[in-house]
């Protein structure tokens, strides 16, 4: 019963995530049980398969362009508490390897005191449900349509029974890729990622990291954070302050390797290479993962805090390496300036411990919100990023004998 990794994780050599992503969270009705949820998931999975083949159930004989849709399904810890669940919570999904809940009065730390916090208006984290579904496609329609088609199935199921479907949509988040390789703070701050030959051993659960739960071998864990950037605070910093917090030159993306005698950030003079203007262009690959530096102020910049064990074998959990597959977002907001901008941080790893430790450990990202010196943060930088939703989901392997990934959890 050897399984394989689900689709929707773009880790192969030369692969890059398609342009659009939707993450949808489904909450189980309190009165339902595992069998009912499993039946519904089987129906949804079959519908998703149809969509990937260009078939919309309400439009028989009218093929559509799927937009390269790929669908991935994951399960939160609560799914194992459903009545009649046939699998028990994997050991690597222990409560200590999850995010904290938001404070009932709003806000509160995601993990530790100085790191990421929930936004003050978040009193309940909307991404801690039983089921998470990730849609990726080349077009916005490609990822929006399956969300609507999901609603149709749930709506019809509710109408045909007691008025309540076993699952309900609790939250939907959308995002898109940026071709320029920058984030909303204008920097190339998220371009350092694993080499393609290292990725599968970071992502896939193997016989060792399964810790005895062999049914999750070839699966992975998806971590999701909906992070809003406080752009007014960011714009309150000078370019030099921004560069030292990020660890890259704002314009070129060249890694900062030290400071000038005046204390200004000093980019690597070798980057970008001749004939190029930015680190994301061909020929600059070696500068995407910043090298170790001596300057203590540069060492505490974001790109260095997030990746300290560069020489360690990425396959080892001790490396704390993860495979990131984030999508930016932009959404209207009733609050000035009328929109929110940020990142759907998505990562895949063989154990949540890798990410949890990066976000929790002092000198990594545990004692700052984004970067810089722990006790000398520029004003407001302790809340540059706030969390609107966060969750970790087990992504079970695709197994030929199952009607949908993880089906044996339910029946």
């Amino acid at each position, binding site marked *: 019963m050897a399984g394989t990794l689900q689709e929707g994780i773009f880790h192969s050599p030369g692969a890059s995530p398609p342009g659009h992503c939707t993450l949808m969270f489904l909450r189980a009705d309190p009165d339902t049980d595992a069998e009912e949820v499993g039946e519904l998931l089987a129906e949804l999975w079959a519908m998703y398969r149809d969509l990937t083949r260009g078939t919309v159930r309400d439009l028989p004989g009218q093929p559509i362009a799927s937009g390269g849709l790929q669908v991935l399904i994951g399960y939160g810890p609560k799914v194992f508490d459903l009545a009649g669940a046939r699998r028990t919570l994997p050991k690597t999904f222990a409560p200590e390897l999850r995010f904290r*809940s938001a404070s009932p009065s709003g806000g509160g730390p995601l993990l530790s*005191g100085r790191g990421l916090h929930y936004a003050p208006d978040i009193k309940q984290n909307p991404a801690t449900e039983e089921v998470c579904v990730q849609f990726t496609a080349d077009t916005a329609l490609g990822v929006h349509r399956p969300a609507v088609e999901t609603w149709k199935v749930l709506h019809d199921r509710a109408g045909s029974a007691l008025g309540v479907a076993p699952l309900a949509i609790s939250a939907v988040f959308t995002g898109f890729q940026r071709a320029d390789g920058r984030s909303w703070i204008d920097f190339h701050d998220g371009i350092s990622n694993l080499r393609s030959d290292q990725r599968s051993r970071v992502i896939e659960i193997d*016989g060792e990291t399964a810790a005895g739960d062999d049914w999750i071998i070839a699966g992975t864990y998806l971590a999701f954070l909906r992070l809003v950037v406080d752009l007014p605070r960011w714009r309150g910093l000078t370019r030099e302050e921004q560069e030292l917090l990020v660890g890259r030159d704002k314009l070129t993306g060249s890694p900062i390797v030290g400071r000038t005698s005046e204390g200004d950030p000093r980019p690597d003079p070798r980057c970008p290479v001749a004939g190029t203007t930015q680190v994301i262009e061909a020929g600059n690959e070696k500068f995407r993962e910043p*090298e170790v530096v001596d300057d203590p102020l540069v060492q505490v910049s974001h790109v260095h805090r997030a990746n300290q064990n560069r020489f360690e*074998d990425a*396959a080892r959990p*001790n490396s704390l390496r993860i495979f990131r597959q984030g999508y930016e977002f932009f959404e209207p907001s009733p609050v000035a300036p009328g929109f929110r901008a940020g990142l759907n941080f998505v990562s895949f790893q063989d154990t949540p411990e890798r990410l949890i430790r990066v976000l*929790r*450990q002092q000198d990594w990202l*545990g004692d700052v919100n984004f970067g810089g010196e722990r006790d000398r943060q520029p004003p407001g930088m302790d809340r540059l990023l706030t969390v609107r939703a966060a969750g970790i989901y087990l992504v079970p392997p695709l197994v030929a004998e199952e009607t949908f990934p993880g089906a044996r959890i339910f029946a």
Partner: protein
Amino acid sequence: MPYDPPGRADHLPDDLVGRWNGLIEAAHAAHEPALGSRFFSLEPDTGADATTVQVGWFGDPAEPGFCLDPEAAEQLSDWGVRGRHELHNEYCEYAVQMAADANGVVRPKRVQVTTELAEYWLMLATWSPPTVRELVEEVLGVRPTWQELYGPGVSDPEALDPRQRTVAFATHVAGNGGDPELAEAGVPAQPMGTLNTANALFITHPINGLDDLLYIVMFGARPYARQTPDGFQPASREEIFRAFDVEHLACRHADPAAAMAAAGAAVAGRTVAFTNPLGMYLKSFTAELFTLDGAPVPDEWVRFSRGEPDRFQRLEFGPGDDDPHFLDDVTVTLGDVEKRVRGGYQVVRQLEVGPFVTLGPESPVADDERVVLQGSDEPIRCNEARACESVKNLQTRFEEQHGATRVAPRTMARDR
């Protein structure tokens, strides 16, 4: 360049500094024939292009975690001196101080964590008994007797010759550290006295030695590569450790981290040297996870020592003797669960340790310098490692003494 005392924690006369360097040079010389290369040096590069970096790993013992499970790892690692002697092999050892509360109940009071190398202390004990006595007093706050340091029959260590002092101190405070000559002289693997068993004075596990540290970095500091259709690529951890039949080392925190850091540097043609002062240092500690009555633990409960800032080798965590609190009054918040602190394992899980190394600038690596490996790249099954047999034996002994029933962790539900 002579190395200063570890952490520059002590001001020693030149002759003792010289003897410390003699130990380093001897360990280096012992490995030089088999592992020497231009990529490792005892002379850190001092050029403008040199870079200093601290290699790091977590201080909790890895082996019981992958051989058994996290709960058993905590239970066995916290099993007093037995757990320490068998499992604390990540260059980080700890001892829990116990004390009676007002009701006479013996409870954990604080945790002592150390990364200090035994060879350094053994050198001092051999060549300067007054110095080692002062150090123990400085660290533990109590002046030890000569008998505690050198054995019941020794009232004046100066009356012993250096070799006798080495054997005596090793027998009672340091253990043999895996040194065959000391073992042949009758020194047990672990010390017989209580100074460094009731306390964590310095590390004593045989694999936590200076010799092993030099071995693993020198072992790693070679440009290991595999031939591919696209040319040479850096060899993987599996290929490197499997090629030299040391797969068991690949599963711990320390050895792969140290070796792969050195290998990564060598592949780029960089030299690797231990930064002065050579030692094993505490890298980061996430104290903020620990709270007392809902507030961060008082600053004075987190005491670093035995070194300069950024070069500390010792951490004491917990209340002082005059404080009415105990370690198990502390809560550690991990993810979505809060737990009472029961022992040292929960503390060292939040602690990174490692040595500093200085890397020279990149340089071309000639074809004949590469160590080309052709072994399997298949994952190493750590839970099938030989080390797991001894871990499981320890678990059997634990269960014989305590019964097989595990006490559920005391947890407190959080509001959702």
